[in-house]
């Protein structure tokens, strides 16, 4: 048996390193073959492609020397994929037929979202194993609705605003346009300011129900850090826009007629880089925030993903993906996975072997089969 890369620490604490051994070259070949098969089968091959990709990424993720494994079955995932596809089609066509049908479809889809998220979380975790042990998602479907219930407030505000501004102006029962013009930005601002709270509620549900054996995680965080982080991300976005988008646009002044197409393309390019920078900043800070505060009774995680190297990687990836018309994507995906995963360590308050012997799973079948019911798999 391969030795466990456990570094004994003070007392009985053990740190398990995460390693990612996937290679861009190999994943490129897997990706291109998958993409070809998916396109010539008009998308029906997608679940098989997804399973192969997840197995590649799981199988190359070593936790304390042991690889993760993915057990999802493509045929079951095809059902979930078709169901999700039908919902998306229904929604996009309903909106084109009439605003009322669009509204009804929106409500129908929105009322399904928590159940879909719950099913997806269950499916993904129930089909992920480490050392032959399946993980579990212990959250309930009711918990998913409770975690997402608060999202009704900003959605209702925005829908109400859209409805008011879309109604005829000469109707005396309606508030006048000027009042609406003042209220509209405030309502949007209010809805936006609630977003970190919504996000925290969802993450508390997600990170508070990860289970392995008898261990069950919780997220030891209030909503405060999420608000702080959203301000910082907004700040990074504004600074990056000033440096790469708004600044150059003002400097050029859009005067030269012949150069305009190029200026426009450069600005679009700059905007994509701005998105890459602020997205990478948000991802790295969020990963550290979430995983360093996720723990169960005897298992703790620590994530130390540095923002600057990760932003550098994201910029390189964005530039190369654009320049190669997407063909660089497999290299970007493996490099990103490596940097993100290897920043994480798992701390055990008990030796891994000792923990392994006490994990028993006798009451499994029914519960985990439910996770397979629709085979819904959404990436998180």
């Amino acid at each position, binding site marked *: *048996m*391969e030795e466990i890369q456990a570094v004994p620490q003070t007392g009985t604490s053990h740190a398990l390193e995460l390693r990612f*051994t*996937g*290679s861009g070259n*190999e994943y*490129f*070949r*897997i990706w*291109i*073959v998958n*993409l*070809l*098969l998916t*396109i*010539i089968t008009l*998308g029906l091959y*997608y679940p098989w492609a997804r399973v*192969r990709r997840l*197995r*590649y990424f799981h*199988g*190359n993720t070593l936790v304390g020397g*042991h*690889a993760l*494994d993915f057990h999802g079955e493509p045929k079951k995932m095809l059902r979930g994929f078709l169901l999700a596809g039908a919902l998306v089609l229904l929604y*996009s066509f309903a909106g*084109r*037929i*009439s*605003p009322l049908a669009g509204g009804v479809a929106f409500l129908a889809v929105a009322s399904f979202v928590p159940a879909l998220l719950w099913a997806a979380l269950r499916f993904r975790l129930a089909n992920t*194993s480490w*050392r*032959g*042990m*399946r993980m579990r998602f212990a959250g309930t479907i009711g918990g998913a609705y409770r975690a997402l219930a608060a999202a009704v407030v900003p959605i209702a505000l925005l829908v109400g605003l859209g409805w008011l501004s*879309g109604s005829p102006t000469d109707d005396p029962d309606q508030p006048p346009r000027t009042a609406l013009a003042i209220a509209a930005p405030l309502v949007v601002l209010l809805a936006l300011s609630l977003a970190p709270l919504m996000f925290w509620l969802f993450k508390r549900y997600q990170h508070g129900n990860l289970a392995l*054996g008898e261990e069950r995680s919780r997220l030891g965080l209030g909503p405060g850090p999420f608000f702080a982080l959203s301000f910082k991300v907004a700040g990074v976005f504004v600074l990056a826009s000033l440096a790469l988008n708004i600044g150059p646009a003002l400097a050029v002044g*859009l005067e030269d*007629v012949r150069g*305009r*197409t190029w200026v*426009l393309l450069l600005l679009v390019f700059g905007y*994509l880089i701005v*998105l890459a920078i602020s997205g990478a900043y948000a991802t790295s800070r969020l990963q550290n925030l979430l995983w360093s505060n996720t723990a169960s009774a005897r298992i703790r995680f620590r994530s130390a993903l540095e923002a600057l190297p990760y932003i550098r990687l994201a910029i390189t990836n964005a530039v190369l*993906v*654009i320049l190669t018309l*997407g*063909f660089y*994507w497999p290299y*970007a*995906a493996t490099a990103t996975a490596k940097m993100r995963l290897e920043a994480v360590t798992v701390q055990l308050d008990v030796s891994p072997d000792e*923990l*392994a*012997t006490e*994990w*028993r*799973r*006798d009451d*499994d079948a029914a519960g985990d089969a439910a996770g397979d019911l629709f085979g819904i798999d959404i990436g998180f």
Partner: protein
Amino acid sequence: MPPGLEADYFDGRSARAIRVSLRVENGMLRIVGDALDLSVPVASIDWPERRSRGVRMAHLKGGGSLHCSSGVAWDAWARDQGLGDSLVVRAQQSWRLAVGAIAALIAVCAAFYLWGVPVAARVIVRLVPPGVDARVGEIVLDTLRDQEIVAPSAIEWEQQERIRTAFAAAVGRTWPPGDRPALHLRFYESALGANALALPGGTIIVTDDMVRLLADREDVMLGVLAHEIGHVRERHSMRALVQVSLLGAVAGLAYGDYSAVLAGVPAVLGQMAYSRDFERRADDESIRLLRANGISPEVMAMLFQRLQAESHRRAKEAKHFDLGIALASHPADEERMRRFQAAAHEGSMAR
């Protein structure tokens, strides 16, 4: 008997590894280890795919699994036991086949773009009842009115009727009664400038500026309206809706993993190329009507000259972006003018 492959067996109930030796005998996998002797049908096992590195994990029915930390040893063993690779696995492990896959992918995408999407859109639109077109057209018109892009026309009723009558007569001379499209001509004052639009369902909108631009040239106006009728007859706006959805779906499969923004780019560029194609088809219908009414298609040059003069005048009033041809929904004016001129010469030679 040759020595079996050394691997770890997990029973799926505990995380304790059992050291086992693996061997295939008569279509059964024998798993032998400490106080363990299992025999499992080879066909029931979910075997791992060959990779250049990493561990190998096989899934057994009932939750058990086999792990081997040496991929090289596993692959050699699997080959010896006659467990072959699928074509997909071989393609994934060979650069030559992967490059072949790239070439095939590009060929498939090109065929899909050139024939697949337009043909699929035509078939799908044929399945959509015409009533849906009319409903979509009404929604578009309502939106144009609500957003004050169009306003009631200032053109006198007599002039509107004169254009309607002339156009109805010209259409009558062009298409046989069964094939004749329904005519709904509407006039609006609009911020769009001199323009004409065909809405799904057959309503044609002509802006007041267009009527003024061609007030002295009824022949050119007929050409403009016939172009719009061309869009209506072939249900171009409905086909465009379907085409952009199909393109978006495929681009999403290819690029959706990386960025939804990037995935939208090929869909938009592709739709613009299709749109240029629709314009050419509509110009052909315009040529057809002009000829059927004994008007030389060359008169359409007048339209482009006047439109260009108008756009220069507007450009001085308000600055706007000059987009390259890849980003334009219409072919270049010069190309369209040449097309009408060529049609005029062909016509005169045939006569």
